[in-house]
């Protein structure tokens, strides 16, 4: 137990996640199972994920809906308990901490969600929303000091101190996301988990929020776990990237390496299928098929039914993440064997 009170390790990564799993029991009620002779069903939303986030860095998780990104976010925030694995914040495994032991860490760890409206109490004035973490963590007690700090936070995110008097519904979507960023910053966190923070916003507003987040990161030395399904947004924000498919990382590495030389066929497919405004005029090869049911994922490599490179081995044996040249890791039998695949080659 003394573990928890160990001094934080400031030399390593700010967050290290290893062997992380989270299963959901999605069985029908027991009686139905008995009557219909159905087994228990586990949905392996996150099924063995490892990554590290360095101080001041942005690590992005990208993948299509249902691949487990939000579950990882909730695990990292301590909102869900893992089914297995470790979540080390500055060297301390927060998954083993009690609520009370967790509280000193919680302050350093904030979260921003996709839907800013749902996460802001509609009956509170903005100043109360933004000031709440300051009170909850006992950072300041004097009312005037809290008001001063709240005004400063609002300015920091591009709102005016006078906006503190208003209620969330009086703001546009982008301004509401600024409010949730101000609230996230209130406890002076070192690490912010951002789950699709701009997915509900229009592009011009998204640009404002992404610029704001980058600026804050630079000024305050923040680390981000940044989750998005939008690869261009991820490209803009991330230093390192993990590509998720059905609860696992299929590729991981420096953003530049992954965008210039994607290795896993799923990453290549994602990059190849996105419509982009550069108008390269290339013919795309839309990959056939849809994401399989996560309750009953394919054997071997989960991507094999949709993969143009799949061979016998892929159907039997699950590939593990293995290092490739260029500093990235991919979990793919064919990529490791050096198989080539030219997404830009003309069809026919």
């Amino acid at each position, binding site marked *: 137990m003394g573990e928890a009170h160990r001094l934080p390790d400031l030399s390593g990564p700010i967050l290290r996640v290893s062997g992380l799993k989270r299963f959901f029991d999605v069985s029908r009620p027991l009686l139905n199972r008995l009557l219909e002779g159905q087994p228990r069903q586990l949905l392996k939303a996150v099924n063995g994920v490892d990554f590290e986030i360095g101080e001041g860095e942005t690590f992005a998780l990208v993948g*299509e*809906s249902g691949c487990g990104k939000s579950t990882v976010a909730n695990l990292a925030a301590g909102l869900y308990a893992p089914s297995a694995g470790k979540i080390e914040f500055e060297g301390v495994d927060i998954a083993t901490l009690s609520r009370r032991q967790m509280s000193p860490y919680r302050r350093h760890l904030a979260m921003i969600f996709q839907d800013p409206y749902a996460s802001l109490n509609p009956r509170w004035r903005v100043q109360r929303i933004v000031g709440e973490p300051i009170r909850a963590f006992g950072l300041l007690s004097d009312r005037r000091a809290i008001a001063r700090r709240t005004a400063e936070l609002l300015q920091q995110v591009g709102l005016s101190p006078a906006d503190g008097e208003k209620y969330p519904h009086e703001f*546009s979507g*982008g*301004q509401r996301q600024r409010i949730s960023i101000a609230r996230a910053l209130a406890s002076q966190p070192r690490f912010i988990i951002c789950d699709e923070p701009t997915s509900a916003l*229009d*592009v*011009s*507003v*998204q*640009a*404002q929020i*992404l*610029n704001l987040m*980058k600026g804050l990161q630079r000024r305050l030395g923040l680390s981000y776990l940044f989750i998005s*399904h*939008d*690869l*261009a*947004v991820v*490209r*803009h924000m991330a230093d390192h990237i993990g590509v998720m498919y059905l609860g696992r990382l299929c590729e991981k590495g420096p*953003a*530049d390496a992954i*965008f210039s030389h994607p290795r896993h066929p799923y990453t290549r*497919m*994602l*990059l190849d*299928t*996105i*419509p*982009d*405004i*550069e*108008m390269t005029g290339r013919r*795309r090869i*839309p*990959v*056939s098929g*849809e*994401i399989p049911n996560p309750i009953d994922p394919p054997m071997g490599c989960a991507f094999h039914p949709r993969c143009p490179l799949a061979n016998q081995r892929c159907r039997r044996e699950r590939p593990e993440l293995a290092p490739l040249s260029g500093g990235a890791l991919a979990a793919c039998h064919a990529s490791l064997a050096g198989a080539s695949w030219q997404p830009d080659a003309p069809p026919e």
Partner: protein
Amino acid sequence: MPGPLLQIAHLRIAFDTRRGNLVAVDDVSFDVHRGEVFGIVGESGAGKSLTGQAVIGLLEPPGRITAGRIRLEGRRIDNLPYARMRRLRGKQIGMIFQDPLTSLNPLYTIGRQLTETILTHRNMSHAQAREHAVRILSDVGIPAAEKRMEHYPHQFSGGMRQRVVIALALCVNPKLVIADEPTTALDVSIQAQIIALLKQLCEKHATAVVLITHDMGVIAEICDRVAVMYAGRIVELGTVRQVVKHARHPYASGLMGAIPSLRHRQERLNQIEGSMPRLAEIPAGCAFHPRCPEAFAKCRRRRPHLIEIQGAQVACWLYGEKA
């Protein structure tokens, strides 16, 4: 030489509300040619969906057309009685919406929905209609189409449902399809499949498409020409290349710069300050002037109209007489 398939001239759509008459679409004009894929792009609230709804006669009250004309093959369709508009909508104009469930009846098998649509609008026997339905289902990439005819909408995934809706929109060979954010609810890999499908089918049948989306990437991918809307007005209209690569209007070019690129990493995205005005607060003069880095005196006073510059159309005083 026949004229354009669809002509929209000076369209205005307004709402009568307690706070007075709100103009949501104002002086919108464009033509769509046979077989063309015409894009309407803009941020939410720009008036894109209302424009599409006006064309298919599905504006919901209190919204109504208060000025302008809409013509299909030269004939006015903005003032047709309900029953005639309904027939036209099935036969000549197909529709695809963001949520496929709005176009599908949850209580009927998709086979029945397709067959009935075909029987209503085409001169076929029941057996022929059914056969045609199966063919079009497999054309839109639904495996085991024969068997899937017996299934209900909820038995399909989101991507497959949107394919069914495309089949439903195209099964009577319409001349025009209005597709409002058809891929917005789908994952990227599925989105790519649906875009490719729509493009291929419309090419094959020479069907024109008005594609409404907030996603410039989708526009760049499949459109021939595009109109950029802002606060109920078209601010720029041209070929996709003209608009994407050489946008002239400060809003259009600002928007292009705000989109993160997949190819290179910028330190900062271009930022347009502020946000689109609410309907009750659309500024006088150029609606974009409070956010425009180039605005000058005239922009605050007088509204710019679309003028032609090297084949594109732009509504901005930078390109007109400055005084």
